[in-house]
């Protein structure tokens, strides 16, 4: 893949200096973890472990410990699954779509996007196991699997996307791992061994660079259809049923559009936190926030378009069974969540971000937080209210069956999964540079491949 970046004005010596400076800035968080960082990691570990404990309770007592019952048989776990799949799509958007369309500014953001993708899809896979009544029979999916079932499609695409995303994270990381191997010589022995193992003998020769860049180019094309299929198949888990509210031909693109919007907001938050915590102002600049802001406006508008198709067009008709659901969402008990999500998570961000001042790092991060929280609740709205509005009325059922409010076990486990995603991202950033040195410098016209081979 030929890149169209401009040539640097710097002479070779200055280029080398630039490289050394970036290396030292980017490696600093790997050498040192501050008090806040330690507290943060400790907090995530505690939340995660508490969720693991909650899961042991669920394994022992059964799913009875959740608030799930025969009507609302899918709840927080499944909505969280959809949310994780959604945010994992951003890896493909930032590292691949922007790359292939030559938006040069994506360069320092690829790794943040990719680690969000990897941890998101990993926990999507885990949380779906948590929802299973019989996790001990998980292997039946392989030895008794039916290819006709959308769940089996999901198993196939999610695992493929996980592997692809890991490779997509790993290959461009090779020069950085080799750098860690060569420079972080005072770290613990196991860590040195890890760098040595993971660098796979990278020494930056021409052949290695060529193989790596080609692999990345191939992956960046492959990952787009994969990303679209994971979320389309996830949408089909619902759209292949006859339930009013899920029985929609719009569901695939609706999910994909929402996923790009939510994931982009996640990357903005990641950018802000890493920029601040790891002092990366020189590389993640206001230009990046500005551009991500524009991208988010575009994605909010696209998502709004699908929402109009998904809610307002059925509302125009108010067809029998669907009308019950729509009335609940628009004016019923669920309406506060519905309207908050639509306004704070989509409409208002789209309008506010039109103003340049809102695209400054702090305001846009706050807006992105609203988008992410909105996106999470939106997944809940897509899953559970539909189950509580079946064709046949809910009659003579215990009160607990007619509504859904998650139990402490569900909240603890979902909290743990969110903490787990953040923990992977944090720990990753403590062992590997969170921005790609060669990709970023290449954007400035400094070719590390050339420099690596010049010195020999």
């Amino acid at each position, binding site marked *: 893949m030929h890149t169209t970046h401009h040539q640097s004005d710097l002479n070779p010596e200055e280029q080398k200096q630039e490289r050394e400076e970036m290396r030292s800035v980017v490696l600093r968080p790997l050498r040192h973890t501050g008090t806040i960082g330690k507290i943060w990691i400790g907090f995530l570990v505690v939340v995660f472990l508490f969720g693991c404990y909650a899961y042991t309770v669920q*394994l*022992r*007592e*059964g*799913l*009875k410990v*959740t608030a*799930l*019952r*025969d*009507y609302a*048989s*899918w709840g927080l776990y499944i909505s969280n699954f959809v949310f994780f799949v959604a945010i994992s799509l951003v890896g493909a958007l930032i590292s691949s779509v922007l790359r292939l369309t030559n938006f040069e500014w994506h360069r320092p953001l690829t790794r943040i996007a990719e680690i969000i993708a990897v941890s998101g899809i990993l926990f999507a896979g885990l949380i779906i196991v948590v*929802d*299973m*009544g*019989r*996790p*001990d*029979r*998980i*292997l*039946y*999916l392989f030895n*008794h*699997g*039916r290819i*006709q*079932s*959308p*769940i*089996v499609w999901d*198993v196939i695409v999610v695992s493929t996307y996980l592997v692809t995303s890991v490779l997509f994270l790993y290959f461009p990381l090779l020069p950085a791992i080799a750098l860690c191997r060569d420079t972080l010589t005072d770290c613990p022995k196991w860590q040195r061994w890890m760098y040595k193992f993971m660098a796979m003998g990278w020494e930056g020769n021409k052949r290695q660079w060529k193989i790596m860049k080609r692999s990345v180019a191939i992956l960046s094309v492959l990952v787009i259809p994969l990303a679209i299929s994971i979320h389309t198949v996830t949408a089909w*888990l*619902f759209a*292949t*049923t*006859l*339930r009013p509210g899920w029985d929609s031909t719009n569901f695939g693109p609706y999910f994909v559009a929402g996923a790009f919007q939510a994931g982009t907001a996640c990357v903005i938050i990641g950018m802000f936190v890493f920029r601040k915590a790891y002092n990366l102002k020189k590389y993640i600049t206001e230009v990046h926030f500005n551009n991500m802001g524009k991208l988010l406006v575009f994605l909010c508008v696209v998502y709004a378009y699908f929402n109009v198709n998904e809610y307002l067009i059925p509302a125009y008709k108010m067809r029998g069974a669907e009308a019950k659901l729509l009335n609940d969402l628009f004016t*019923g*008990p*669920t309406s*506060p*969540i519905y309207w908050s999500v639509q306004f704070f998570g989509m409409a208002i961000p789209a309008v506010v971000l039109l103003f340049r001042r809102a695209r400054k790092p702090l305001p846009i991060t706050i807006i992105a937080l609203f988008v992410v929280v909105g996106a999470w609740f939106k997944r809940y709205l897509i899953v559970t209210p539909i*189950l509580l509005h*079946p*064709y*046949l*009325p*809910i*009659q*003579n*059922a*215990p*009160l607990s*069956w*007619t*509504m859904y*409010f998650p139990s402490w076990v569900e909240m603890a486990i979902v909290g743990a999964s969110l903490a787990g995603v953040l923990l992977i991202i944090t720990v990753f950033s403590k062992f590997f540079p969170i921005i790609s040195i060669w990709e970023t410098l290449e954007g400035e016209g400094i070719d590390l491949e050339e420099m690596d081979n010049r010195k020999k």
Partner: protein
Amino acid sequence: MENENNNKDRRNFLKLGIFTTATVAAVGTGLSKVFSENNPPQASGKKVKVMTADGKLVEVDSAHLKCCSSPPVSNEEARKGIEGKKFVMVIDLAKCDGCATCTVSCQKMHHTPPEREWIKVFKMQDSEKTAPYFFPKPCYHCDNPPCTKVCPVNATFKRQDGIVLIDNTRCIGCRFCMAACPYSTRFFNWDKPEESAEVASMPYSPEQSFPRKMGTVEKCDFCPHMLREGKLPDCVANCAMNAIYMGDANEDAVTSSSGETVQLSKLLEDNAGFRYMEELGTEPRVYYLPPKNRRYPKPEMHNEKQSEKKGHDMMNMKM
């Protein structure tokens, strides 16, 4: 040299693979221990000779013998269904007075918990001005079943005799079938089933749905274990109003609790029989006869609306 390195890498990779597999297997065994409900009884030391289904004489420990009136058919047989049959049910809404004897007798036969109604009697009113009526709803055993389509492991399946069953030794508890069923017909064993020791020790067959297993789905099964013996399911046999008919579409005959057997096609034709929500295309095997000329009090819809409203208020508070 390079070759050797490659080999070493491959060996390491294989080692990693073996390690991972071993871990997964260990975790799996641990989990299955957590989930195993039926521990085999202690051996008594006393041996008895028995004949197996395929005609072999074997010696087993007497403690391992279980007493049961009709041994369930093999899993394979239960998945195939009864040859030459196409079971069908007809529910006459004009006769149903909502007494829910069908529900109660079904619960008794299948040892279900009280709130789990495989056949549930709804009070229905299609619109404000139209007449209310009672509406018993079993599983429709659809010919185009949305539930079996989505099952990832073939735990729920359609048999040649038209019956849709669940194998709770296969079910992984994903509940996709529950989401897919438009009639809310499926139920989940959210916790360890509360069953008497007698029920818990019975041999399991998908044809009879118990003993139950935690984390698996269940539903109305059309009582194939009764049908095999030429008996009516309990919901049909105990209906005091003669409102439910069960029979074989191939024979074009259905029978109600009074023992009266009528011609299916004539019954449907004379009474303008219909299927619930035909527009969904699920092709139910349960037909209804319209609720006209009823000779019992119509259902009181007022109470139901009250309770529904109450439910919603509660929901509002919690949100």
